[in-house]
């Protein structure tokens, strides 16, 4: 034990001195803004440099095998690394520039990919050089993903893909996309699906950005018209795509439990407590003057704390073995409830000032709170909706019978 602790301390020291030499001080504490997609002027170029250094070291993907460009760290070391990044006011910019690469696609390739696929795709993801999108949802296949109908035909030396995906985050600037396609129309729904990786740089794939209620356009309709996928880009076996795809969804859920930085917050940079004090006023003892508000805020903060403690407990119980578990569904639902509630409280606290869209008359914090409140509504929809997570909990954890047709 003592030895392990010493080794970890040694590792921490190494991280600290590496950070001192490599993390640009101009970026200290700017992670939230940068990850939220804000332009931060001159610091942008520093951010690129920082991303390159972190990627080259393998620490953007700390636990991935070193042979493919990952950090090769243990779970304990990775946690220490994260803590040191936090302490230094640093952050991992590649989580954003890789799209779904780091959080979802990479872990799935590591698990199901061929040696050749790992060689080609993983190191590029580790360096944050490739932005990955995911084409799962179709207009008629959302929660019921298994009914998807985009098809891939074997024409000998490659696959020809035809159909449409929708709600594809980042497809308009992605370089690669992982798609679920139907390769067998005769088999039961789940047995005729395959997972293909496709180069977005081709005439057969077109994207149409869709504006969200929060104003930005991070997702698209994606059209495949005789698009081409290479033979060596099938992830997993032919017609085994459902298993691969489901595994990826577990990774997605894991990234949305609120435990890692993959999850969008409510866009605000100030704590709820400070906002409450600023907008609602305090009494002589520093208590929120409005008792009703105070009580509701407290209830929310207790929920948030309970969520954090549950993440910590589940992590501790897993003893450093970062397996994705069914608990991810619980954590994801708790996370979306807590974050959505927080955003609602934030704009309630801000009152008239929490209604701003743009222009003068509102502070940048106020505008960010409104945008964050709106975009946060998606948290209970993507990655398997709130209801679908509840179905998973009922069936997989509680052992309750399913009443949805499996189709």
């Amino acid at each position, binding site marked *: 034990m003592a030895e392990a602790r010493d080794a970890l301390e040694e590792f921490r020291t190494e991280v600290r001195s590496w950070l001192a030499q490599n993390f640009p001080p101009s970026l200290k504490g700017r992670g939230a803004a940068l990850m939220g997609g804000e332009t931060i002027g001159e610091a942008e170029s520093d951010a690129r440099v920082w991303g390159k250094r972190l990627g080259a070291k393998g620490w953007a993907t700390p636990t991935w095998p070193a042979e493919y460009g990952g950090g090769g760290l243990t779970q304990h070391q990775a946690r220490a690394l994260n803590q040191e990044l936090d302490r230094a006011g640093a952050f991992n910019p590649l989580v954003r520039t890789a799209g779904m690469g780091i959080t979802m696609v990479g872990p799935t390739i590591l698990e199901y990919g061929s040696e050749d696929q790992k060689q080609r795709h993983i190191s590029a993801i580790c360096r944050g050089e490739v932005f990955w999108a995911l084409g799962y949802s179709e207009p008629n296949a959302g929660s019921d993903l298994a009914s998807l109908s985009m098809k891939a035909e074997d024409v000998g030396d490659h696959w020809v893909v035809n159909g449409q995906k929708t709600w594809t985050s980042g497809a308009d600037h992605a370089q690669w996309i992982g798609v679920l396609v139907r390769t067998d129309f005769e088999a039961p729904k789940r047995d005729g699906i395959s997972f293909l990786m496709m180069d977005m740089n081709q005439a057969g794939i077109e994207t149409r950005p869709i504006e969200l209620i929060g104003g930005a356009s991070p997702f698209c309709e994606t059209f495949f018209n005789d698009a081409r996928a290479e033979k060596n880009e099938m992830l997993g076996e032919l017609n085994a795509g459902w298993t691969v795809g489901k595994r990826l969804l577990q990774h997605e859920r894991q990234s949305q439990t609120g435990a890692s930085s993959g999850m969008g917050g409510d866009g605000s940079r100030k704590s709820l407590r400070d906002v409450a004090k600023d907008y609602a006023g305090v009494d002589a003892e520093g208590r929120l003057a409005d008792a009703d508000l105070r009580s509701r805020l407290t209830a929310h903060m207790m929920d948030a704390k309970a969520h954090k403690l549950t993440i910590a407990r589940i992590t501790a119980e897993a003893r450093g073995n970062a397996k994705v578990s069914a608990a991810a569904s619980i954590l994801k639902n708790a996370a979306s409830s807590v974050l959505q509630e927080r955003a609602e409280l934030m704009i309630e606290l801000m009152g008239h000032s929490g209604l701003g869209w743009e*222009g003068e008359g509102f502070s940048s914090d106020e505008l960010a709170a409104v945008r964050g409140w709106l975009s946060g509504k998606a948290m209970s929809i993507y990655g398997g909706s709130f209801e679908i997570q509840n179905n998973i909990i009922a069936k997989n954890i509680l052992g309750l019978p399913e009443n949805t*047709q499996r189709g």
Partner: protein
Amino acid sequence: MAALTEEQALLQEQARSWAREEAPVAKFREMRDSGNEFGFDKATWASIGEMGWAGIVIPEAFGGVDVGYLTFGVVLEELGRQLTASPLLASGLVAATALIAGGSDAQKKQWLPKIADSTAIVTLAVDEGPHHAPASIAFAAKKTDSGFKLSGQKVHVLEGMSADAFIVAARTSGTPGDGVGISLFLVEANAAGVRRQRLRTADSRGYAQVTFEGVEVPSEALLGAADHGDALLQATLDRARAGLAAEMLGTASQSFDMTLDYLKNRVQFGQLIGSFQALGHRASGLYTEMEMTRSCVEAALQAIDSGAEDTPQLCSLAKCKAGAFLHHVSNELIQIHGGIGMTDEFDAGLYLKRARALEATWGNQAFHRDRYATLLGF
């Protein structure tokens, strides 16, 4: 609305089909995208004037039809369904109410006929900070030799960009928190020292921040008695809240209808999603809530019409319940629509944004819970 008179039922039908055909939500979206600085379409407002809706509570002597607040609520609910943006509520209901109850003959003669035919827009300017707090008005009106001098800022003024005149709640004596010392003034928008700035809110209606820089007004600008405007302000706000609650009920009912429609049309897992009890029960819950809310809104409007003593608490009840239901149903509207609900192309976002803007107007749920308790004496 239950138990409507024949006239009210006809008006409801007229308002519903007019809103659906002439002022549907698509038109509101168009207005938003055009960057219209007033926050409503002038032609839409002119048609409302032609139909006489802005004169519903105005006495016949001043060009209105004087048929009461429940009737007004019938129209507002239908416009709320389509998110129709117009100064109808701010001018035809709120400002008209204050003028009828507190205006001098000269003020009534000058403004009510024009409000009734929608050739003038008058609006109430009450809030000064992020939250509705009429009890702590600090905006100063200082007595001068010839009248008063107004200095201060009003925020979140509905139709503040288009108003021809403001009814400004000001303090002529006492300190913030005192009931006595509040006076209302009717100030023309073109008076020297009045400046307005458009607030670009998530809901694209015409909100403005209005600054009064030493604006001189004669004593005749007082609406009601000096220092004793609080009762008039409260009565006006209660009517404003009841009217707003009717509009919110409409917005919420439409959100409900859209949600129900989707539950009956969207198929996943080979069945209508409405057949999943997890969703069906939520729709049932929303429906129950809608019925409860309707009762509260109607009771408030009827209480106003009959001069009932419990009007203030019924108005708080209506605003609070409408706020809670609208909050709930606008969130469900998005959640149950899944990905489509998050897109700007679909209307759910417009309803959600409108919901939060109305929630913050003239007291949110917490404000009205507190007021309800106070009015009940605990």
